């Protein structure tokens, strides 16, 4: 169990975030994972292959990604923990797998755009964080997309990486991030990805099961702090509606 590491990482990310200058200079770990997935996808996803073969190639790709990311994270943690202040150093690296600040900033920008300059700039702001078509969205559609994305990413970008860090340290958090990034890149039900991305999508659903439920409980608990009865309504909605959503982890 690495509760202390997860706590250090979430606090570092809360107060420091990922510096903009570092982002411009060297990118971000999830971008590096993205490049790796992209390269393997171009290499192994053959549009002419049979569906079963493409599914197999997707499984091989996922295993390669997990092997590479897991090994790097394991070696990094092993080395860092031997240094003086090793927990702090490991937590600093692990903090890059959590996105409390950037998620808040991106969603707040959508509210600011709607409050200030209107629907067109709201659409542009929301297009940064959602995959759906934004051209036809009105103010209510933009606001719903922003809130849905906030709820989903609270689980995917904060609770899930922290939970897997508690269970598996830096490698646990990094492996989760790799699976979630793979799902966002190749887990679509389009002709190119339906078979190749099958394994990534299924594994992502699986590793998000515990965190999505914990996220729902945390949001209900947060609503209870408001003491306006909204917690009961939140709990009713979770109980009644979560099973109906397309994703087993939404609600």
């Amino acid at each position, binding site marked *: 169990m690495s509760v202390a590491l997860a706590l250090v990482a979430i606090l570092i990310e809360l107060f420091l975030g990922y510096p903009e200058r570092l982002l411009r200079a060297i990118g971000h770990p999830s971008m590096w994972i993205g490049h790796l997935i992209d390269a393997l996808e171009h290499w192994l996803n053959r549009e002419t292959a049979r569906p079963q073969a493409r599914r197999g190639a997707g499984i091989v790709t996922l295993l390669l990604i997990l092997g590479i990311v897991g090994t790097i994270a394991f070696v990094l943690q092993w080395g860092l923990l031997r240094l003086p202040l090793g927990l702090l150093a490991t937590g600093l690296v692990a903090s890059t797998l959590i996105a409390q600040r950037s998620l*808040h900033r991106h*969603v*707040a920008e959508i509210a600011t755009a709607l409050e200030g300059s209107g629907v067109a700039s709201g659409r542009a702001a929301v297009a940064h964080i959602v995959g759906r078509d934004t051209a036809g969205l009105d103010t*209510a559609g933009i*606001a719903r997309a922003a809130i849905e994305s906030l709820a989903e990413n609270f689980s995917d970008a904060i609770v899930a990486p922290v939970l897997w860090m508690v269970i598996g340290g830096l490698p646990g958090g990094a492996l989760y991030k790799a699976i979630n990034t793979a799902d966002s890149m190749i887990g679509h039900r389009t002709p190119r990805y339906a078979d190749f991305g099958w394994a990534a999508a299924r594994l992502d659903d699986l590793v998000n099961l515990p965190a999505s439920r914990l996220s729902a409980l945390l949001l209900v*608990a947060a609503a209870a702090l408001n003491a306006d009865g909204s917690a009961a309504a939140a709990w009713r*909605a979770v109980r009644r*509606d979560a099973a109906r959503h*397309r994703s087993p982890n939404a609600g």
Partner: protein
Amino acid sequence: MAGALGLSLAGPRSYDGVLVPDAVMGDGRREATAADIRGALALYRSADAILIALLASVAGVIIALG
């Protein structure tokens, strides 16, 4: 999130020009506003603070026992 804010969220959405069906979450207003986004952000900050408090408590217990 939908229930806590008195909204109904999700429902059918369009991806790359294709309308994808989905169930609606919650039974509140469909007409969400910028103020609802602010409310969602406040809820998000509270839930995040509870998560951190939970981690700190578990870490504290482990240190106390260890």
